[in-house]
């Protein structure tokens, strides 16, 4: 028997339509156009459209469609497109709106915690320092220590730029990438991590906000080289 492809479309109102293709090369493009249009339709009108493609071992289109209805055809692929939740229904354009003034006030919420950031960063740097000390010792569970080191480096990365310390975010991002690239930890890897931790400590001690200017650029360039060497291995 020949294979006949059948595309079935089912809508939420229980209507079903079928189209058969004796030439399989034509089923694919039709499926693609159908899918694209289904997205447009659900986007504009809402609702839900389910499309399925079947491979029926039948000689003609009518028999193939019957095989699909009887559940005797093999499903090749399927997709369901639904209209997304419309949050506009819960949003208003008046009253307590978020305007430039509110955005400024919200940004101040972040900016007011700048001093907290210094405390948090020092805590994370202490944790990183301890991780490095453990890694230097023989017999350490390196994977779990690296996981802990990554967590501290990641926290610094996430927080820094939010509080105006963009340079520490970049150095932290570098350190995260270095840790992620490590399979094992050699003494040179520990040195590479140490360079990052020291650089971050300088940023905090000297309160180097922003990108750190020319010094910051120089630091990042040096760390780029370190990361490149590790990633190339």
């Amino acid at each position, binding site marked *: 028997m020949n294979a006949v492809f059948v595309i079935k*479309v089912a809508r939420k109102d229980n209507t079903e339509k079928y189209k058969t293709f004796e030439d399989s090369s034509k089923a694919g*493009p039709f499926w693609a156009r*159908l899918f694209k249009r289904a997205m447009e339709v659900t986007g504009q009108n809402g609702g839900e459209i389910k499309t399925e493609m079947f491979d029926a071992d039948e000689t003609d289109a009518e028999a193939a469609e019957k095989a699909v209805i009887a559940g005797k055809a093999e499903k090749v692929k399927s*997709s369901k497109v639904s209209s*997304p*939740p419309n949050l506009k229904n819960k*949003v208003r354009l008046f009253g307590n709106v978020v305007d430039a003034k509110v955005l400024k006030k*919200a940004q101040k919420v972040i900016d007011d915690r700048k001093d907290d950031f210094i405390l948090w960063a020092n805590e994370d740097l202490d944790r990183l320092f301890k991780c490095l000390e453990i890694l230097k010792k023989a017999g350490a569970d390196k994977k779990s220590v690296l996981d802990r080191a990554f967590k501290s480096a990641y926290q610094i990365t*996430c*927080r820094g730029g939010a509080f105006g310390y963009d340079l520490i975010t970049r150095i932290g991002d570098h350190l995260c990438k270095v840790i992620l690239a490590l399979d094992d930890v050699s003494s040179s890897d520990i040195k590479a991590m140490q360079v990052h931790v020291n650089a971050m400590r300088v940023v905090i001690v000297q309160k180097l906000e922003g990108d750190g200017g020319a010094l910051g650029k120089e630091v990042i360039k040096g760390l780029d080289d370190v990361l490149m060497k590790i990633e190339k291995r």
Partner: protein
Amino acid sequence: MAELPTFNIENLRFLIVDGDENMRNVVVNILQTFGVRERFEASNVEEAFKILKDYKPDIIVCEWELDNISGVDFTKKIRKGEDYSDPMVAIIFLTAHTYKWQIENARDAGITEYLSKPISADTLYSRICSVIENPRPFIEGDTFIGPDRRRQHDPFKVGNARRESDKSGGEDGDGEISDDEINAMLGM
């Protein structure tokens, strides 16, 4: 940044999932300043699923790095409707990960918006506005569940490369097919 719309979002319900308590507080405080009344917090996925089930938030702000399972796997579980969660809930991914493959992973897991840390009030609000203004059709395919990944203005900025996984519901070529045929199939 382009001028943002001025929405009153006080009735939207948010869930913030982040193991970093300090940054979670920052996000909560920003949302409070935006006027959001219902703000739920979770430090891990177990807490998050409980809140999803009990309070049905409209938008989840989720960090990638979580204990036990990643934010990416958490997103996949939500999209599959695990633990009675709403598969279509909007998920704004908040992370410091910046590798292209990481962004693609998050997108393919079914997130709605991607927001790179460090956070600012403007960037968070812009993603919330995008979720409100540009809802995308929700796709449940054989290999992907989530909002349509192929919108004109790609928020993930990872190029337009075609993926093998798209074939579950994607374009295989155009051919000579009339709009009438397509519309007839869709009952239009």
